């Protein structure tokens, strides 16, 4: 879930537009395309992550993106996705669902065992699901993903049967995520403290040691036989191991890559991407994340945005296109959908987002925001047209913060007083929980369109004990709720697609959100590193087929 949001350390991710870079594969398939020459065995890869260091390596616990990034190297899921977004076998070879969609049978690969020797079987699957659903595990993402799974029944060693409370059309997508990956039951049994330090899976690498604040070292799993159906080669990885470093400062991270201190970095900044593509000395992987796009949510739960005219006026006034071009060096594409462009069912309508200052002013006058003060800020009945906009410095990269300043500047022309306040994560959540915001940017990563339900279903307005709630637009629309619920349990693909399209039309048409661009997720690596690719699931890189040439 909000994984990406938790603990992203200062200056974080960068964005680049898929396609904008003409690199043959600014697509998740990049790896294969680049995989020229013969693989070389050996060598240790150094990975530099800009994300904050996880406090637990087990993605079941909590469940955020930094965990997914590293867990993908030593854990595997039951299923995966291919580039077209079709579900493909991984640890499960095949699956069937009942008519009512309430039971799923997963056939598992045989003669697979975890790196601690524990055999991988239906019991293991059962143990994992129970682990995820156990409150003591403190799972968030996985817990939500399997929300509709009641129990798992061990039919045989190789067949696990999932019993659902209600049909879940997103089950396979949910199971493809690293946060629901399968761990060794023996490992889990060791208890959280131990399992957090070195989770045990079936993946191509094994957690060797973790030196907090410094690095995690992974070594090759020589007995590795599994892997998703679309894997490039069979058997153990070429690399001897991976040194997983944490370098929060983007400039240092890029410098380290240039200096050859590290082989690959994530969260590459736009300007550095621009440099890299100009110099041509570094290779780039652009893997936009699935789920929601980066967008501004307009809080429709309270004035002034409870008035659709004011929402539209803001969207007409706030001009972001030039900003995206200049700040992201033409490496990020403007999006007109609330869903990521990698989502098959993403629906976009640019006609809704033309900027037109006159119309914005007209709308505001019509809505009664007629008075203007010396600074040109509108007000109504003495109440100024103020938009509080808390920005988390942990997750909005500098370029994005600059973009927000431009939104602030352009919206001001229409008489909006946008009050940006960059704050640290805790304060940010504090502001949201207290509803002290009119605007907010809160990306959300999840496989599949079901993310819409989490973000815009009225149920998501009721906060968790922490005060956190996902529906930040506070969109409360019965029709929408109906559509999303139906879509979530609709098994027929076309029907489902249609339902989601209608839902998205309601969201976009109601001016509840201002889409900006995909959740940018860029990796830069040295040309010496080959065969690396980003998983089509949540766009984390996998090094199962990667090697270090020369």
């Amino acid at each position, binding site marked *: 879930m909000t994984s990406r949001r938790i*603990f992203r350390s*200062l200056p974080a991710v960068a964005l680049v537009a898929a396609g904008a870079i003409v690199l043959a594969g600014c697509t998740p398939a990049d790896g294969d395309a680049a995989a020229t020459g013969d693989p070389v065995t050996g060598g240790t890869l150094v990975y530099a992550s800009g994300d904050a260091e996880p406090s637990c390596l087990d993605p079941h616990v909590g469940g955020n993106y930094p965990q997914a990034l590293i867990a993908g190297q030593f854990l595997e899921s039951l299923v995966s996705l291919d580039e077209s977004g079709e579900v493909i076998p991984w640890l499960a070879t095949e699956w069937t669902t009942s008519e009512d969609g309430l039971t799923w049978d997963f056939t598992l690969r045989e003669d697979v065992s975890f790196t601690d020797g524990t055999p991988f079987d239906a019991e293991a699957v059962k143990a994992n699901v129970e682990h995820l659903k156990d409150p003591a595990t403190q799972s968030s993402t996985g817990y939500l993903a399997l929300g509709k799974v009641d129990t798992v029944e061990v039919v045989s060693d190789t067949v696990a049967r999932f019993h659902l409370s209600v049909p879940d059309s997103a089950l396979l997508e949910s199971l493809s995520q690293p946060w629901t990956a399968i761990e060794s039951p023996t490992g889990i049994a060791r208890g959280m403290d131990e399992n957090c330090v070195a989770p045990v899976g079936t993946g191509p690498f094994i957690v060797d040691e973790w030196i907090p604040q410094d690095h995690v070292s992974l070594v090759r799993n020589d007995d590795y036989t599994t892997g998703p159906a679309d894997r490039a080669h069979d058997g153990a990885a070429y690399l001897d191991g991976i040194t997983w470093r944490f370098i929060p400062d983007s400039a240092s991270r890029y410098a380290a890559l240039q200096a050859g201190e590290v082989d690959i970095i994530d969260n590459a900044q736009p300007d550095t991407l621009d440099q890299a593509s100009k110099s041509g000395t570094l290779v780039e992987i652009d893997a936009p994340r699935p789920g929601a796009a980066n967008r501004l949510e307009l809080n429709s739960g309270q004035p002034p945005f409870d008035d659709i005219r004011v929402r539209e006026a803001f969207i007409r006034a706030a001009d972001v296109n030039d900003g995206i071009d200049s700040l992201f060096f033409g490496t990020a594409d403007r999006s007109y959908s609330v869903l990521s462009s990698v989502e098959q069912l993403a629906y976009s309508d640019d006609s809704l987002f033309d900027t037109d200052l006159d119309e914005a002013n007209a709308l505001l006058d019509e809505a009664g925001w007629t008075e203007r003060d010396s600074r040109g800020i509108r007000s109504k009945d003495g109440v100024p047209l103020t938009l509080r906009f808390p920005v988390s410095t942990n997750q909005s990269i500098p370029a994005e913060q600059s973009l927000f300043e431009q939104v602030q500047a352009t919206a001001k022309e229409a008489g909006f007083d946008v009050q940006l306040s960059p704050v640290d994560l*805790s304060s940010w959540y504090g502001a949201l929980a207290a509803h002290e915001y009119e605007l907010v940017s809160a990306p959300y990563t999840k496989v599949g369109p079901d993310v819409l339900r989490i973000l815009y279903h009225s149920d998501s307005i009721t906060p*968790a004990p922490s005060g956190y709630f996902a529906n930040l637009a506070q969109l409360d629309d019965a029709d929408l709720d109906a559509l999303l619920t139906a879509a979530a349990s609709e098994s027929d693909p076309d029907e489902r697609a249609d339902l989601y399209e209608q839902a998205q039309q309601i969201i976009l048409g109601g001016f509840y959100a201002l889409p900006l661009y995909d959740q940018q997720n860029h990796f830069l690596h040295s040309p010496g590193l080959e065969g690396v690719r980003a998983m089509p699931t949540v766009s984390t890189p996998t090094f199962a087929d990667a090697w270090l040439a020369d």
Partner: protein
Amino acid sequence: MPRSRVLRRVALRLAGAAFVLWAVATLTFFAIHLVPGDPAQAILGGPGSQASQEALDEVRADYGLDQPLVVQYGAMLGRLVTGDLGDSYALKTPVAELIGGQILGTLALAALALVVAWVLAVGLALWSTSAGRIGRAIAGGLELTAAALPHFWLATVLIAVFSTSLGWLPPVSNDAASGLVLPVITLAVPLAGFLAQLMRERMLEALEQPFAVSAAARGETAAGLRLRHALRHAALPAINLSGWAVGYLISGAVVVETIFARPGLGRTLLRATELRDVPVVVGVVLVVALVYVLMTLATDVVSRFADPRIAREEAPA
């Protein structure tokens, strides 16, 4: 001075040190507990987590967070006395261990930086006092500029120049010693600015003194005058600054460790503050305070040793 007075003074200083530590612990503890944000949340995956009410209650019970603040405070003091800093909310590991793993890096960094800063400062002071008006003006400019350089900016520039452009040094710390160079310089330069400023003034002062004249009258060389006479006088106040300097360096470490991706207290603290990881914050602050206190005690001894005059006129604070 007589033994008895020495002992009394030592006792007094130690008591003072203990008081400082207690006060720091107390201040930090209550400060953190005034913060909006629920420790239980911090424990359960931090803000924005969707931990269930049950889980929260469970954790509150486990960590005694349901106790009244005073009780928690007492518990903390009790643990502190036994050297137990409690467990990290986020990492669930003992804070003492966590800090133990991080402190050496930071101390090494700070120590090296202190040494380098001294070398730079002394060099600059020696040069500038022998140079003419213009030389002094330049030196003064250098000192002020150095002292006015924010660490984060200096670090970025150094990386851009020595790593990216020249490729001489690694931009991020690595196992090799070369990884220490840039961080140390980053920390040392601004400090050197301060020290040099102070030392130059003191040296010029000392060189005006009659004892400098009589030394010269014995045939002392210009260099000798500075090294054997003026420098000692200039060094004293700077030595007395060491306690402050260490604090200054550790402050800088917060930034420097982040930029150069060094493990250390600074980063630990920054992270813990973000996560509201109370035990870690208290722990780090305490350890830093301890370092400061020890440092001041040390400088106290050193300057006493270097300058018998201090022992004679004793001044509190």
